[in-house]
C-alpha cells in the first residue's frame, strides 16, 4: 500500500449556533485505501464529510489534496477537485435516466449528446458490473443499483477521493457484497475511499484504517487489524467495556403476564397479506425477515397506517376496529415509523413541539396542552432519554439521527401507550444510543407495556425479544421462542431451510 497522503485535513473547526460541531479535527486519507470514519451520532462524522464536500464551510483549518491546499466552496467545486460523495439518501434524480444521472451537472458543452452519453454509461456500467441499463429511468432501479450508479458517476469523474456515507443501510447481504467488490476494485485503482457506516462487521470486512471521532473531536487513527472490535466500540462511545456487557445474552428475559393485550386474526391491509398475531401484556416480540419480507407492512397494518382490508382485532379481549392510526392510538397503541424522515419527525418544529404532538392529537384540538405543561414534558423526556439538543426549542431537523429517533420515542412515551411498535428504531444510529434504546424497551416491558420490535440486526432482536415472528415473501413462516431463539435458528427460518 502506498503511504502517500492523498487528502489531509488539519485542525478543522466548524461551529453551529450553540454547538461546536468539529473541534480541531485531523483526518488523513492515503491513496488506495479504504478508511472507515467511525463515531456515535453527533460525533461530527456527517459534519466533517459535509465540510469536505463543500456543503458546509469550515470555520478554521486547512484541507490539502495531494499536498496542495484547496478551498471547497460548493458540492460542485468538490467534485471538480476530485472529491465525490455517495450519500445515505440517494441524491440522484429519479425522473432522469441512469446515463443522465451519471453525467448531469458536469462539464460539457451546452448541447447534450444523449446517445454518446448512453454509450459511455453502458460501457462503464458493464465494466463495473452494475446491473442497469443507461436508458432506464433511475426511479425504476432498486435502491442498491441507484447507489451503484452514484458510485459509477463518481468513478467516471475520475474522483481521487470517494466518500461513501452509510452506503449499506438499505442494501441486503448480497448487494452489500457486490458493493464491497466494487469498493475493492476502486481501491486497487488508487482511489481513496472514506467509508462511513454503523455496521462494525462491515468495517472489519473491508476497511484498512479507522479514524474515530467523538463529540466533535478526534479520538485517534488506527490500523483496522490492530484495533479489536470491542476496543473500537469503547473508543466510539467513550465508556468502559463492562458497561457494554450490561445486556449480556445470558440475561434472563422476564416472562410476560399471561393476559393477552392485542389479538388479530386474518389481519390484512393494502400492503400486507392476512396474518394472525397476538401479544401479551409486558411481552417484547419481534418481526424479522429480510428487507421487503413484509415485516414493516404487517406492523403498519396493526397500527392502521395502511388501508386495512380485513381481519378481526381484539384489544384487551374486546373487539376493536382499528382502521386509522388515530383508532390505534385511542386503544393505547403507539407506532414508531421505520422512515423517521418521512413518517416521523417534523423537521421545522422544535423538539418540544415534536414531543407533544401525539399527546395533542390524542387530547383533541379543543384541549390544548398549555405552554408550561408542554415545556415540562419536553424537559422531562430530554433528560430521561438523554436527548442531545441545544434547547427544547431547537428545530428537530438540526439534531443528529439518533437524537431525532429519541424525540419520536419521547413523543410516544408521553402518551403512556399500552403497546408500542418500534419499526427499526436503531437503524442508522450509533452503538451507544442503540444500547440505550434496547434498555428502554426492556424497562418498558417490565412496567407492563407490550412492545413489538423490528430490526435488521438479528442479534439485537435476540437480546430484546422473547418471541420472534419470522417472515419471508410476505408470509409468516415461523415463530421462535425459548431455546429456538438463537442466530442459527433464525437464519435457517429466514432462509427457508429446514426449521
Amino acid at each position, binding site marked *: 500500500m502506498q503511504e502517500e497522503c492523498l487528502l489531509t485535513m488539519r485542525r478543522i473547526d466548524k461551529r453551529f449556533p450553540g454547538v461546536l460541531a468539529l473541534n480541531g479535527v485531523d483526518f488523513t486519507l492515503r491513496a488506495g485505501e479504504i478508511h472507515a470514519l467511525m463515531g456515535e451520532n453527533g460525533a461530527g462524522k456527517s459534519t466533517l464529510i459535509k465540510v469536505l464536500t463543500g456543503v458546509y464551510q469550515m470555520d478554521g483549518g486547512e484541507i490539502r489534496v495531494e499536498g496542495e491546499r484547496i478551498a471547497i466552496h*460548493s*458540492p*460542485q467545486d468538490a*467534485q*471538480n477537485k476530485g472529491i465525490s*460523495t455517495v*450519500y445515505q439518501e*440517494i*441524491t*440522484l*434524480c*429519479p*425522473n*432522469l435516466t441512469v446515463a*443522465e*444521472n451519471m453525467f*448531469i*451537472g*458536469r462539464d*460539457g*458543452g*451546452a*448541447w*447534450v449528446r*444523449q446517445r454518446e452519453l448512453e454509450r459511455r454509461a453502458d460501457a462503464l456500467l458493464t465494466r463495473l458490473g452494475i446491473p442497469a*441499463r443507461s*436508458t*432506464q*429511468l433511475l426511479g*425504476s432501479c432498486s435502491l442498491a443499483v441507484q447507489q451503484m450508479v452514484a458510485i459509477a458517476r463518481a468513478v467516471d469523474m475520475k474522483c481521487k477521493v470517494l466518500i461513501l456515507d452509510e452506503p449499506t443501510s438499505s442494501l441486503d447481504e448480497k448487494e452489500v457484497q457486490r458493493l464491497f467488490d466494487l469498493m475493492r476494485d476502486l481501491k486497487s485503482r488508487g482511489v481513496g475511499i472514506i467509508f462511513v457506516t454503523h455496521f462494525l462487521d462491515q468495517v472489519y470486512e473491508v476497511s484498512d484504517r479507522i479514524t474515530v471521532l467523538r463529540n466533535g473531536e478526534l479520538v485517534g487513527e488506527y490500523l483496522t487489524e490492530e484495533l479489536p472490535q470491542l476496543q473500537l466500540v469503547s473508543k466510539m462511545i467513550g465508556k468502559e467495556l463492562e458497561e457494554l456487557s450490561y445486556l449480556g445474552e445470558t440475561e434472563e428475559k422476564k416472562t410476560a403476564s399471561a393476559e393477552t393485550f392485542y389479538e388479530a386474526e386474518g389481519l390484512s391491509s393494502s400492503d400486507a397479506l392476512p396474518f394472525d398475531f397476538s401479544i401479551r401484556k409486558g411481552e417484547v416480540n419481534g418481526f424479522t425477515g429480510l428487507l421487503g419480507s413484509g415485516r414493516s407492512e404487517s406492523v403498519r397494518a396493526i397500527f392502521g397506517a395502511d388501508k386495512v382490508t380485513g381481519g378481526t382485532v381484539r384489544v384487551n379481549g374486546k373487539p376493536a376496529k382499528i382502521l386509522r392510526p388515530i383508532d390505534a392510538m385511542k386503544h393505547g397503541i403507539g407506532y414508531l415509523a421505520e422512515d423517521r424522515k418521512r413518517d416521523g419527525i417534523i423537521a421545522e418544529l422544535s423538539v418540544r413541539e415534536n414531543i407533544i404532538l401525539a399527546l395533542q392529537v390524542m387530547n383533541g384540538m379543543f384541549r390544548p396542552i398549555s405552554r408550561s405543561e408542554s415545556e415540562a414534558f419536553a424537559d422531562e423526556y430530554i433528560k430521561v432519554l438523554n436527548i442531545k439538543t441545544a434547547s427544547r426549542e431547537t428545530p428537530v431537523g438540526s439534531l443528529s439521527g439518533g437524537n431525532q429517533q429519541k424525540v419520536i420515542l419521547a413523543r410516544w412515551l408521553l402518551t403512556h401507550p399500552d403497546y408500542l411498535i418500534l419499526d427499526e428504531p436503531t437503524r442508522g444510529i450509533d452503538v451507544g444510543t442503540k444500547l440505550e434504546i434496547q434498555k428502554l424497551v426492556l424497562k418498558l416491558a417490565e412496567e407492563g407495556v407490550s412492545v413489538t420490535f423490528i430490526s435488521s440486526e438479528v442479534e439485537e432482536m435476540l437480546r430484546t425479544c422473547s418471541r420472534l415472528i419470522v417472515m419471508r415473501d410476505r408470509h409468516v413462516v415461523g415463530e421462535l421462542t425459548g431455546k429456538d431463539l438463537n442466530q442459527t435458528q433464525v437464519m435457517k427460518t429466514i432462509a427457508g431451510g429446514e426449521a
Partner: protein
Amino acid sequence: MRKLSLLKRKEPLSDTQLLMTITIGIFFVMYILAMILLGGGFLHAQQLFDMLNDNASLIIVSCGLTIVMIGGGIDISVGAVTSLTVMSCALYLNSGGSLIASMLIAIGIGLAFGLVQGFLISYLEIQPFIVTLAGMFFARGMTTILSVNPQKANHKAFAALREKKIKIDALGYRAKNGNLVPGTIEIGVVVAIVCVILVFLLLKNIRLGRNIYAMGGNQQSALMLGINVKRTRFMSYLISGLLSGVAGYVFLMHTGAGNATNAAGMEMNAIASAIIGGTLLTGGVGNVIGTFFGTLSLTTIKKIVVSSGLNAPWWQSITTGGMLCFFILLQSVVLGRRAKKKKT
C-alpha cells in the same frame, strides 16, 4: 400500451411520455368525433388553422410556463405581462415608432419581468407564487395606466406585417358563392411553432433543459449533482418572461389593438394547457409537445361547445374546468396504477 409496443421501444414509456401520449390521443379522438358528429366547420382545415391563429400567443405563453413548471415552480404573471406588452407595443406603434424597435420593446418587457421575478425567486428565495402574483398585479396595473381605452395600432409597416399570411389553396374550401377561400395561417402561428420546437430542443438536448428536469425532480439531489440550482431556476423564469413578451407581440399581430383586458385569464389557460399536456405541478415531469396538444385540446373542446349551440361564455369555462378535472383524474389513475404495478 400494447399498441405502443409495436414501436419497439427499448424502455417502457416514462411518465412524461405516457401522459403526453394520452393527451395527444384524446385530442385526436375528440377532433375526429367532432368531425363526425358536428361536421360543419370541423370538416375544413381552416377550423384547425383558426384554432391556431386565435391561440398562437397562448401556445407561446404555455411553453414558457411548462419550463417553469417542470422546474417545480409556477409563474402566474404571464398573462398580465403579455397584456402589458400588447398595450405598450400598440401605443409605441401608434406614436410612429419603428417596427424593429417595437419588437425589441416586447422582448425587453418580457425579459425585464423574467429578470426581476427570477432574481427574487431564485436568489432571494421568495415563494414563486407570491412573486409572480405581485408581478401579475403590477403588470395589469401598468397596462391600465398606459391606457384605459383600447388602442389600435395605426402603423403602416406593422399593418403590412399583419397582412402577411400563409395561404394554402390546397387546404382551402369553397365558400357559398363558389369562391375558393384558401387555408390561412398567420405569422404568429409560425412564431408559436418555432417557439414550441425551440423549447422542445431546449428541454431535450440542452444542458439547461436537463438541469431544469433534475431541479424539478429533486432539488436537493440536483444541488448535490453539482447543478447550479439558483441559476437554473433564474433562467427558467427569464425564459418564461421572454416568451410572455413574444406572446404579447404575437397577440398584437392577431388583434391589431391593445386593450386593458387583453389576455385576461391567459395564465390560467396556460396552466391548464400544461397540466392537460402532462406536466405535473410538482415538477420534474412534463413535455412541451404535450403542452402544445394540451392547448389544442382545450381549444377544441371550447369550439365543440360553441358549435353545439352553447354560445354563452360560461359554458366554455365550465367545460374547461370539467376537462381539467378529467385529465387530472386520468393522470392520477394512470400514474397510480403504474406505481402499484412497479411495486409488485
